């Protein structure tokens, strides 16, 4: 099931890199400003990389008839979609986590924060993939990535707000509640996403 082509991996990866550079350049090198907005920059780049790769996953397969066979297969659609989302997360988020140290140097973030930042993005980013799949399953009949992007963004507010809040305040002591909330948010989306997605796909067959 993990057998997948890596075509969108490179795009997402490059896009994340370019976007981070763009973000850094947009401050015109003002270090204090860059320092303040760098964590938000990382989150926004991550979000947009995820968004742009969304329609590659389920839309292409709906177009070429693969979902027909998922429905025919021995596995429930929920499980198939769950694993597809995991694969999407691995191919999009993990490479980004790997280049994070370099991005952090570029964005003037202290390297001591590396571990904390990586942890936060690690627990926060699955929610991006899972919510994204859920919403893109809604728009199967319309294959414009513009539409998916537009209607998915509102659903990213909880994750984005919590994620940026956590990354911005890594110095504070009483942050454990925020971390718990971030992981709960991720867990919540992981739990509902496969069921909602499968329901949405089946709605397109009736």
């Amino acid at each position, binding site marked *: *099931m993990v*057998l997948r*082509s890596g*075509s969108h991996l490179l795009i997402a990866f490059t896009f994340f890199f370019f976007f981070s550079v763009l973000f850094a350049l947009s401050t015109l090198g003002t270090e204090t400003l860059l320092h303040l907005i760098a964590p938000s920059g990382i989150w926004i780049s991550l979000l947009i990389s995820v968004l742009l790769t969304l329609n590659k996953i389920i839309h292409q*397969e709906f*177009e*070429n*008839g*693969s979902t*027909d*066979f*998922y*429905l*025919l*297969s*021995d*596995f429930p659609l929920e499980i*198939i979609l769950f694993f597809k989302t995991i694969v999407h997360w691995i191919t999009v988020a993990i490479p980004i986590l790997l280049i994070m140290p370099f991005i952090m140097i570029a964005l003037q973030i202290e390297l001591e924060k590396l571990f904390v930042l990586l942890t936060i993005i690690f627990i926060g980013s699955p929610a991006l993939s899972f919510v994204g799949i859920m919403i893109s399953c809604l728009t199967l009949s319309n294959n414009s990535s513009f539409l998916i992007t537009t209607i998915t963004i509102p659903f990213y507010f909880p994750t984005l707000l919590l994620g940026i809040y956590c990354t911005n305040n890594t110095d504070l002591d009483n942050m454990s509640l925020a971390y718990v909330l971030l992981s709960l948010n991720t867990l919540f989306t992981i739990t509902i996403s496969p069921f909602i997605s499968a329901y949405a796909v089946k709605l397109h*067959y*009736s």
Partner: protein
Amino acid sequence: MNSINIGSLDCFIGNKTILSGINFSANKSEIIVITGPNGIGKSTLLKTILGFLPIQRGSITINDKDYTEDPESRKEKLNFVGHKNALNENLTIFENLRYWQNFFSSQKIDISRMMDFWDLPNIKLSACSEGQKKKVALARLSITGRHIWLLDEPANNLDLSGQKKLVKIVKEHQINGGISIISTHSPNLFKTKTVIELSTFVPKKKV
């Protein structure tokens, strides 16, 4: 033990009945050919049997068990080749087949045993012609290990030797006791007695 029985089935597109009262049944090792002009509803009929479209009237029985109300488990008995090939353009032919084999766990057939059905197992699908892709889609039929096949115009895009191979795997399937329901424009290809002409099932228009 294999059998499928369709009883007075109606087919709908939206709220419009396009076919009504379809009856046929197939037992072990039988080939049924469905013909009719374009747009009559051949694909719709197959999709209704597959459970992609809802059944509003009629019944479907497989192996003497009524599956009309249960499209989920009915799907697990059937296999299908449609207009869309459902193949990933970025994988090779071999990888595509292995990918799909993972989804159908009931029977593990060695894919390399089927090598004679296509020519080049390791080229990317995006380099294949439409006919070759259709052959790959047909090859997938055998690896899933299901006994009832629904083929929606399988002879499209195939050259003469491809059509011969198609007939060959259908015959092989027949020898193994499987049932094939085939919608096609060239019914003579499969040399079977059971030919269903769909235009006889079109409901009379109300004035």
